[in-house]
């Protein structure tokens, strides 16, 4: 009995496009693979599950490195998803777009950075939660 082993594969090794070979069989016998053909992998489609309500934005700064989001990363922001405590969100604070974690403390909601040296912002009438971050894309 062989043990089944799972390997972690770096994202760089995942083919962005799987090339397909289509072969015709002259004898008239249908290709046994014909029913199993797939479209090439489309990472955009995978990342953006809800395209009509999702917007791509670029991150400016390092205040969310604790959440694994770095300067220059692309994020997918979904406006159809209801923001809850614990979500990473894009918020407008006095009209300025900012990236934060939404947290509940006591009976209030707060916007929290995930790096040293940033003040928490209380969610009040000057804050509008614009959308929920549902995806992250980065190239090396």
């Amino acid at each position, binding site marked *: 009995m062989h043990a089944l082993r799972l390997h972690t594969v770096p994202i760089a090794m995942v083919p962005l496009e799987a090339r397909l070979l289509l072969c015709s069989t002259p004898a008239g016998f249908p290709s046994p693979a014909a029913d199993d053909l797939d479209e090439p992998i489309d990472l955009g489609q995978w990342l953006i599950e809800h*395209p*009509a*309500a999702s*917007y*791509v*934005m*670029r*991150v*400016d*700064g*390092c*205040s*969310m490195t604790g959440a694994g*989001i770095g*300067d220059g990363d*692309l*994020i997918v*922001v979904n*406006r*159809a998803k209801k923001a809850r405590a614990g979500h990473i969100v*894009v918020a*407008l604070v006095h*009209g*300025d*777009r*900012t*990236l934060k974690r939404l947290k509940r403390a006591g009976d209030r909601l707060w916007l929290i*950075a995930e790096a040293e040296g940033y003040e928490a912002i209380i969610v009040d009438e000057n804050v509008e939660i614009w959308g929920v971050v549902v995806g992250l894309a980065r190239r090396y």
Partner: protein
Amino acid sequence: MPTPIALIDCNNYYVSCERAFDSRLVGVPVIVLSNNDGCAVARSAEAKALGIKMGDPVHLIRDKIDRHGIRVLSSNYTLYGDMQRRVVAAVEEFARDLEVYSIDETFLDLAGFEDRDLAAHVRAMRDQVLRWTTIPTCVGIGPTKTLAKLGNAAAKKNPLFDSVADLSDEVLRTWVLDRFAVRDVWGVGGATASKLAALGIHTAGQLRDMPMKQGRALGTVVLERLIAELRGIPSGAVETIEPQRKGMAVTRSFGTPVTDMATLMGAVTQYAMRGGEKLRSHGLVAARLTVFFHTNRFKPDRPQYSASRMINLHPMTSDSFELIAAARRGVEHAWRDGYAISKAGIMLDELIDAELRPRTLFEGDSDKRGRLMEALDSVDGRFGRFAAVPAAQGFKREWKMRADMKSPAWTTRIAEVPRVAAN
């Protein structure tokens, strides 16, 4: 009982699209200019309150713009088109069928939803559009498209409706129609409105009660159908108001005036290309092409020249190469040296369905041309507009349209997506 129809219309659509990604535009007067930065084609509520009218030429309202700090933007059709796609996706599940009427208006067939509270139903739809896109909308409901449109206008004008007016209700319908000026009814032109006024017909309610025969005698078949639709009988008035396109035009103002024939030829060639593309996408052919160009009329101290040449197309065609040849012939005839041309364009008219076009002898191998046009359209579709061009068009686009104050393609280009601060 006809099935209910709704019309959802985006408020100040272009401005709302711009505000979605630039919060500095919220709460201040904003106008968006036509695609040569010539005149105002969209105004925020604040700009309307300052008396800016639809179509106001920007050079005539400079004063107001400076005095009130009105924010002025070039139109960004890439953005408006992408946001429209999102709006339509957001309303889809709320209707059995829908018809996108214009970039900011969509008709919905609410068949199957009649037993619900329709106002609540369309409010949920409105909320979904607002949530997905940030764009505010108004909705009108009625048994006909004309009444849905009228309800929409009422919902927009009267704050009592809170953005939704359901004219299925007879009492409410009468109330609205009696307060609705007849000249504001969709499809009633200024001339018809004057004739109606002479008969003492000033409101939509009075128009509804006019004998249909009299309506037909006075106006056209359109007026008769409008009367029927105001009574709640679907009559295809909307379809008659905008029947098959009678003519289309491609025109632009030049960023810098053009003083040589070769550059003008290049521009006109591109317009003819675009015209051909438009014709083919509607399945139409044209019988006549007019090419025109002129100097800047607002600089009367400069030498003035205005030219226009009409060329009959025989056989009728949508073939870009035929259109280009015709347009170039027109320019050759009309060109005079020594003028600074500020605007040029082509117009195509006498359009009919390509299937119905009269065949002529000696047409040559039009099938082959048809396939070439298809190939041209598909190359353009795949690689961007004008990826493939006839050499006449030229490759240096000095006369590119003006769009000095255009916002980024926020939603469609990775290099231009909005930035979010993490600092």
